[in-house]
């Protein structure tokens, strides 16, 4: 579905990613893991064109994304939930959700999507008139994911979905990701907690210093010596 070949990203003179290649098959959950500063977020930002300059080849269902600006991805079926939620904090929960279906092709289905998303996140229906900025971190993450689902994406990209959440909320968000995936949406996410990420995903990419150090099915990665010794402290 999504294929990334030799993605390199530079911020000014600093190169952050070197030749990163990855593959997200239809209906899968794929994670990008690695230590702080290894470029995990840059992989996601690079895919959606939110970086100053990138090289490499990115295709989605065979369509080349190299020259597609971020704001047009959503029309192609890719939805991005950026790091730290990136909500419209001065707007209500409902307005944030509406913005998720901003694109012309999605507005006609706004009502059904709102009903669907609010059935998935009943809390958001209760909080619909509240300002998004006034919610707790976990609630904000729900708004962000719900907003990402408003455009009926086939691929959902989540940048650090568990960042700053309480352990209880981490479980809630993780099980929501499973539910969303079961409904046929492929998920690409990055996460620092390697064990959590690998248990949730079907395959993973370990990023170190801006390069893919090791990749494979999540089950294999959990068993590999590299992951066990460095990330699981065994």
């Amino acid at each position, binding site marked *: 579905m999504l294929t990334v070949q030799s993605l390199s990203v530079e911020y000014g003179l600093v190169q952050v990613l070197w030749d990163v290649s990855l593959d997200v098959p239809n209906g899968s959950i794929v994670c990008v893991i690695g230590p702080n500063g290894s470029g995990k977020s840059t992989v996601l930002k690079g895919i959606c064109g*939110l970086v100053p300059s990138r090289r490499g080849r990115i295709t989605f269902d065979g369509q080349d994304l190299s020259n597609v600006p971020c*704001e047009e991805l*959503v029309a192609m079926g890719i939805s*991005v939930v950026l790091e730290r939620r990136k909500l*419209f904090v*001065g707007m209500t929960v409902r307005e944030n959700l509406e*913005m*998720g279906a901003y694109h012309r092709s999605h507005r006609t289905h706004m009502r059904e999507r709102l009903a669907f998303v609010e059935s998935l996140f009943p809390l958001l229906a209760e909080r619909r008139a509240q300002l998004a900025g006034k919610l707790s971190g976990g609630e904000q993450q729900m708004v962000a994911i719900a907003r990402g689902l408003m*455009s009926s994406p086939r691929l959902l990209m989540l940048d650090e979905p568990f960042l700053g959440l309480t352990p209880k909320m981490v479980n809630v968000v993780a099980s929501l990701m499973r539910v969303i995936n079961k409904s046929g949406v492929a998920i690409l996410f990055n996460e620092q907690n390697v064990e959590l990420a690998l248990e949730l995903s079907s395959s993973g990419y370990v990023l170190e210093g801006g390069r893919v150090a090791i990749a494979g099915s999540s089950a294999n990665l959990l068993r590999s010596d590299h992951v066990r010794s460095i990330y699981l402290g065994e």
Partner: protein
Amino acid sequence: MNLSASLVLEQVVNGVVTGTIYALVGAGLTLVYGTMRVLNFAHGEFFMLGGYVMLLTIAVIANPTAGILVAAVIVFCVAAAVQRFLLRQTHRNADATFAPIALTLGVSVVLQSGALLVFGETYQSINYFVEGTLRIGDFRIAWQRILIVIVGLGLIAILAGFLRFTMLGKAIRATAQDPDAARAVGVPIGLVHTLVFGISGALAAISAALVSPLFAVSPWMGTTLTIKGFIVTVLGGLGSFPGSIMAGIIIGVAESITVMLTASEWREPFSLLLLLFVLLLRPQGLMGAPWSRVT
């Protein structure tokens, strides 16, 4: 000095009239600053351009409504073009903080000198749209002034409703609050920037058209207004739309009371003093940027 109650009331109401214009000018500046973090030093010249378009339209068809509409449309296009073809180039370089300032200053100089070349240095004025004066006892105010307040406040209400309830208005607010997230949900922020610049220009033009019977139209009519606009914007809280409306009216009323109690040359120093005073107590301005990018 004889300060009768009706004289004081007259001055306060006159302050509300100028305040409405300040509010419109401040709202335009704050809309632009809020959505694209650009201080538009050419805003006063968009105002001036609006004055001239009004003057020319009125000369052809003697209909103020037509004049206001034509001024709004033409200055909308000029402002949108300035954003699209000039200002947008400076956004390419992320750390170019001063480029937009230099650019809008340049546009301001070009427009002002252009107006001087084309229209000359004469001060021109047009007739009141509505004749007559409202009298309640000793209290008197020209209907023209009341019209300015009604149209101005009506316009602000329409703009607020547009920002609050339409999808396009929501897209503008979303772009202001988080441009990356706005792009991620599919908002073409480049177009939003152009649109906002155009709307801001149109607001300035409508204000100028409204006051053209009171203030003479000249190439310099926008200069002090840009400064006043920035005072209003900062006083209200940078990027806060309701803040700039409130600050506009406050400055307008405060100025006219100052002029009544002292002399007209104290008008400018006083609004600056008021700004300094408020910033000492509330550095974020009156309404402190509720929809800014800073969370």
